[in-house]
């Protein structure tokens, strides 16, 4: 009996030492040496700054902003809010919102509607956030749009599902997988693809793949959606099915994040399929980490990019890289980072426009008034406006991999108007002059 107690004691002691060591390791790794100020100065056509850009630390009671990000095996969307938080830190280091700092409260969810709903209520009811920024999830828009609307909130985020682009509550900086996939399909058709086969996570496939199927039908070629359950456990079989369905010279579009796409791309390489079909992808794998890992796809995969190329030298792109290097050095430069940057930038513009006290009402009114917001990260200015739904990002570029870099393949082009929502959006843009200012 005594020896058993001793064993348990030794075990507990060992666990404690282990935990302390890990804690020390983590604390040590997160310490950051003093680095030069970024985002300071005066904004111009060639320079972007964080908020006021005055280099003074913000003080006082923080302005609270909330975010809900999906985190499940196979997909991690927390990067969006992490970069928004980094942008707000930059704003706080540059005078904040007229002297007050911004605090981003981030929660993660696991595709559970009850959890999504309760987090929304916690942010609004308990945390008293004035705005919701950087929400990204497969299903959260559908769960929360009515609640946020009832409370007068307009969410600036990065969307995935239909409700993110079909309700007045959400205004996304990205165009989401449906329109990005259409853009990828346009790139493949331009290069002579004889069919369009698209694979997306099964939870979003019905919405995300629908536009490509419409485009294939309009062009009179074979179109097929292949929903894939995440995490992928049999990548070889999945990729074989896609290539068999496409046929020689057909087009295969992968609509996955860098958590999942590598498994399928590895399988394609192993099975000798890289040259068998024409490969396309939605935005998430348009980054240099992927380009370095998969040189076999150099010039052979055409990725629709909802944003500017990550290596471009535009003012926002340059500032994003600096902010990333200073505040989130462990996160690679990527599309989700661009989304987070823009979400926070647009929210900051709205916050700075508020006259008087910053409340949920005044901030969200300012958000609704945003239009012709220029950024080099998008093909056209971004806007909110008094619309029934919002698809402000509906022009894209195509990129491909080349020698470990992501390079431009097609300049800005309009996403094919196979959906009536895109047709209507472009009418509204002209009617309300939402993105017409040069």
């Amino acid at each position, binding site marked *: 009996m005594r020896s*058993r107690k001793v064993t348990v004691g030794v075990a507990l002691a*060992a666990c404690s030492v282990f935990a302390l060591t890990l804690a020390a390791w983590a604390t040590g790794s997160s310490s950051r040496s003093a680095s030069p100020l970024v985002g300071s100065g005066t904004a111009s056509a060639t320079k972007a700054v964080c908020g006021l850009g005055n280099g003074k630390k913000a003080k006082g009671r923080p302005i609270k902003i909330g975010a809900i990000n999906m985190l499940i095996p196979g997909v991690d969307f927390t990067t969006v809010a992490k970069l928004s938080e980094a942008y707000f830190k930059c704003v706080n280091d540059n005078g904040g919102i007229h002297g007050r700092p911004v605090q981003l409260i981030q929660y993660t969810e696991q595709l559970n509607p009850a959890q999504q709903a309760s987090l929304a209520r916690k942010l609004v009811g308990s945390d008293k956030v004035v705005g919701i920024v950087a929400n990204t999830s497969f299903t959260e828009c559908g769960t929360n749009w009515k609640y946020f609307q009832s409370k007068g909130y307009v969410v600036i985020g990065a969307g995935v599902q239909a409700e993110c682009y079909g309700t007045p509550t959400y205004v996304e900086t990205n165009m989401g997988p449906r329109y990005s996939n259409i853009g990828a399909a346009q790139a493949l058709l331009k290069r002579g693809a004889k069919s369009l086969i698209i694979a997306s996570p099964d939870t979003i496939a019905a919405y995300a793949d629908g536009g490509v199927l419409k485009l294939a039908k309009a062009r009179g070629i074979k179109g097929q959606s292949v929903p894939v359950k995440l995490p992928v*456990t049999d990548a*070889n079989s999945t990729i074989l099915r896609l290539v068999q369905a496409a046929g020689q010279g057909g087009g295969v579009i992968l609509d996955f994040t860098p958590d999942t796409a590598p498994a399928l791309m590895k399988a394609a390489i192993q099975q000798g399929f890289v040259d068998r079909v024409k490969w396309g992808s939605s935005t998430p794998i348009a980054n240099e980490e992927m380009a370095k*890992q998969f040189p076999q796809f150099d010039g052979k995969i055409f990725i629709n990019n909802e944003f500017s190329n990550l290596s471009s030298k535009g003012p926002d792109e340059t500032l994003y890289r600096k902010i990333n290097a200073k505040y989130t050095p462990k996160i690679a430069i990527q599309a*989700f980072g661009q989304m987070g940057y823009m979400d926070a930038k647009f929210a900051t513009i709205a916050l700075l426009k508020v006259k008087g006290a910053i409340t949920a009402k005044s901030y969200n009114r300012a958000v609704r008034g945003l239009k012709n917001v220029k950024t080099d990260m998008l093909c056209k200015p971004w806007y909110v406006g008094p619309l029934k739904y919002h698809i402000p990002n509906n022009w894209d570029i195509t990129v491909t991999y080349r020698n470990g870099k992501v390079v431009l393949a097609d300049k800005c082009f309009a996403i094919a108007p196979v959906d009536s929502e895109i047709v209507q959006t472009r009418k509204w843009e002209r009617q309300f002059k939402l993105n017409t200012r040069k």
Partner: protein
Amino acid sequence: MTSVLGFTVFGVDWVFLKPYIVLGLALGGVYALSGVGIVVLYQATGVLNLAFGAVGAAGALIAYWMINHTSLPHWLAYTACVAFGGIVNLLYGVLFGPAFAKRDPLVKMMGTLALTLILLGIMAWRAPAGGAFVRVITLPTTNHTYELFGAVVNLTQILALAFAVVLVVGTTAFLRFTRLGTAYRAIADDREITATLGVPVRRVEASAWLGSGIVCGASGLLLADLFTSLDYAALTFLVISSLAAALIGRLRSLWVTFAGGLAVGVVQAILTPYNSVTNYRSATPFVLSIIMLLWLARRRVIVFSPSTR
């Protein structure tokens, strides 16, 4: 699909179907390997190790880190992955095994679930998934490929299958012909009586934890290479298929477990081209294990306990 040879299987041309069988066997080989590792440990200690996948995933992440962030030779990284599996399992077995020895199998299993959650937490903390960080392990053997029935298999897949066969044959012989193997079987029959006969029960159990851990580390390395990018969560939950294989083998028979692993892999792959069921093929491990349990219930032969103590 149009039939090329005039021979279809439920509407899918045999020519299209053949590669899936080959790919399924390759996939099933690793499930079989992991399943056998789980059964050996269960037989020796009565513990159904739910941490099998998490330990393998953590080992693979360590190997990835050594390959990409140090100048150490790659073989050392692979060895570290396998050794990590052995050491973590051994430590768990030595530190917590005796305390759990007399508890119900369910309690023992929950202990390993705790280890899974701890490892998942550490991996999420130190090696978060997501973003643009692409973690991929490619073993040197993966670059050697062979075409078989229209599918390309690589040497790693062949080695995984061969390793599983060797493990089953070796473990069967080990249990039958060695003193330690006899001790395993005696402990499985009755731990207390075996102890009174002078068998160093704790040391024997520790050796089972170590052996199972080494298989666990090797499986983690193989799975990280073959089937996914290095997503710790995905790798951790791949253990479900291996557990199904072990259940099919009633947690007793190594050969049936081996066959069960192959069956899970092949059925999962074969269902891929069938549009009506392809979205449900991830349920294959559960369906096969349920079918097996119902079959055994019919004959009233379900016995999972490794001993009657």
